[in-house]
């Protein structure tokens, strides 16, 4: 974000900082109030003949209730932040953009990417859907959580509850890949030692040693891997891995999928720390900016050689 945009947004940020303080005050009041009610109820139980356990149970119940209500207290601040800060930041980064804080890329996108094992559509949740155009390339991305959580499994007739790690959690980015040749390329970070493609693909070694240090590439056809991964694109992907960390990506029949793992929602407002610091907003869009640089690399390829629009 440039200083001009920051200067334009500063009054809104200042108002949001006040709203955040008010939200925290309301949250503190909620906890104190609910815990006090829980304590009174516990004391009433003790008076009726209960023990310390009853008092503690009443307090624990009150804490659970307060924890359940807390997101609702912070929700208006978060939504206003997304509407009044995140949306203008995105509008600054894209030529045309639609932002839906409660939307998500579809479960089919995750499945079509061929990057992660498929999970039932109802187990794919997400937020902060962004659909935009940059340099004539249409992109969409959102935070996604696919699968995971507690599951019941039967082993020899005996039911067992096990915890399963999510198939993917992080930012899923989908862009048009304007190359007419059909083919599949799937790449995982080199450090994901056990990651293997879900379908039978050939391991391909590319000529860029910097890129090869960060990624292992599998493709339906060796030449297609070289075709999809142009030198400019490989350089952009290597730079991305060095700045933002591991990234899995695939090119599947005209679509580019980029999966940036992480448990932190990148477009979520900070609940602590200074809200007015310009550094915060520079870091805020850094990963999105890096993803858009990859799109620039794609656009560059198209402008030099690709389809005539």
């Amino acid at each position: 974000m440039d200083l001009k945009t920051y200067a334009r947004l500063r009054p809104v940020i200042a108002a949001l900082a006040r709203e955040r303080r008010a939200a925290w005050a309301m949250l503190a009041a909620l906890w104190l109030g609910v815990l006090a009610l829980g304590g009174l109820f516990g004391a009433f139980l003790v008076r009726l003949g209960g023990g310390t356990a009853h008092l503690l149970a009443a307090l624990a119940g009150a804490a659970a209730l307060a924890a359940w209500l807390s997101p609702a207290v912070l929700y208006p601040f978060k939504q206003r932040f997304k509407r009044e800060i995140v949306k203008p930041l995105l509008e600054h980064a894209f030529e045309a953009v639609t932002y839906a804080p409660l939307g998500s890329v579809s479960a089919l996108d995750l499945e079509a990417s061929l990057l992660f094992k498929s999970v039932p559509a109802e187990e794919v949740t997400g937020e902060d859907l962004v659909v935009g155009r940059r340099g004539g390339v249409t992109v969409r991305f959102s935070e996604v959580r696919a699968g995971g959580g507690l599951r019941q499994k039967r082993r020899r007739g005996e039911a067992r509850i096990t915890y399963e790690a999510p198939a993917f959690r992080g930012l899923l980015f989908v862009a048009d890949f304007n190359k007419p040749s059909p083919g599949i390329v799937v790449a995982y970070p080199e450090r994901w030692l056990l990651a293997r493609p879900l379908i039978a693909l050939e391991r391909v070694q590319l000529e860029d040693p910097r890129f090869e240090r960060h990624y292992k590439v599998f493709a339906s056809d060796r030449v297609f891997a070289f075709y999809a991964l142009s030198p400019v694109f490989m350089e952009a992907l290597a730079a991305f891995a060095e700045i933002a960390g591991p990234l899995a990506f695939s090119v599947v029949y005209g679509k580019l999928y980029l999966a940036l793992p992480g448990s932190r929602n990148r477009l979520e407002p900070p609940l602590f720390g200074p809200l007015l610091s310009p550094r915060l907003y520079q870091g805020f869009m850094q990963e999105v900016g890096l993803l858009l640089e990859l799109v620039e690399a794609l656009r560059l390829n198209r402008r030099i050689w690709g389809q005539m629009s």
Partner: protein
Amino acid sequence: MGLTLLILAILALLVVFFFIATYNRLIALKNQIDFSRGNIEALLKKRYDLIPNLVATVKAYAKHERETLEKVTALRSRIGQAKDDAERFKLEGEMSGLLGRLLVQLEAYPELKANENFLQLQAALNEIEEQLAAARRAYNAAVVQFNNAVEMFPSNLVASWMGLKPRPVFEAGEAAHAAPNVGNLFNS
């Protein structure tokens, strides 16, 4: 005595395994080069077939590019008569550079840019060039892998027994290295 024989047998077995594995790997690498070369040849054939259409379409509009068009036609004819693959690939490299420069120069002809036939040809040639660039990179990567195996110890022992020699990588022709004359474009 028995133990010595056992050790010798294990060593012999290891040597046989190494020999078989290296032999198969070298054959796979050699086949990969041949396959990549086949891809390049198919694309070059496609481009070779498109050139007469391009020349015929451009001739009527771009009269100032007569010299370049004649060079393209002459080069195409030399490609058709090339004695061996090395010469043909060298000439094809020159053709890539020449066509690239021609397409840039043709940007200066608005009537040509409005011609649907030319636009389709330009798109087809651009696409073939891009596929060709990828196929060359794939070929060169295969050659580098093969050459490493042929020259590095201990696989070079098996390679020399098989009579395998390092292969040359595909290089762009001189015309591809030559920078286009941007001044001419501004003057036109």
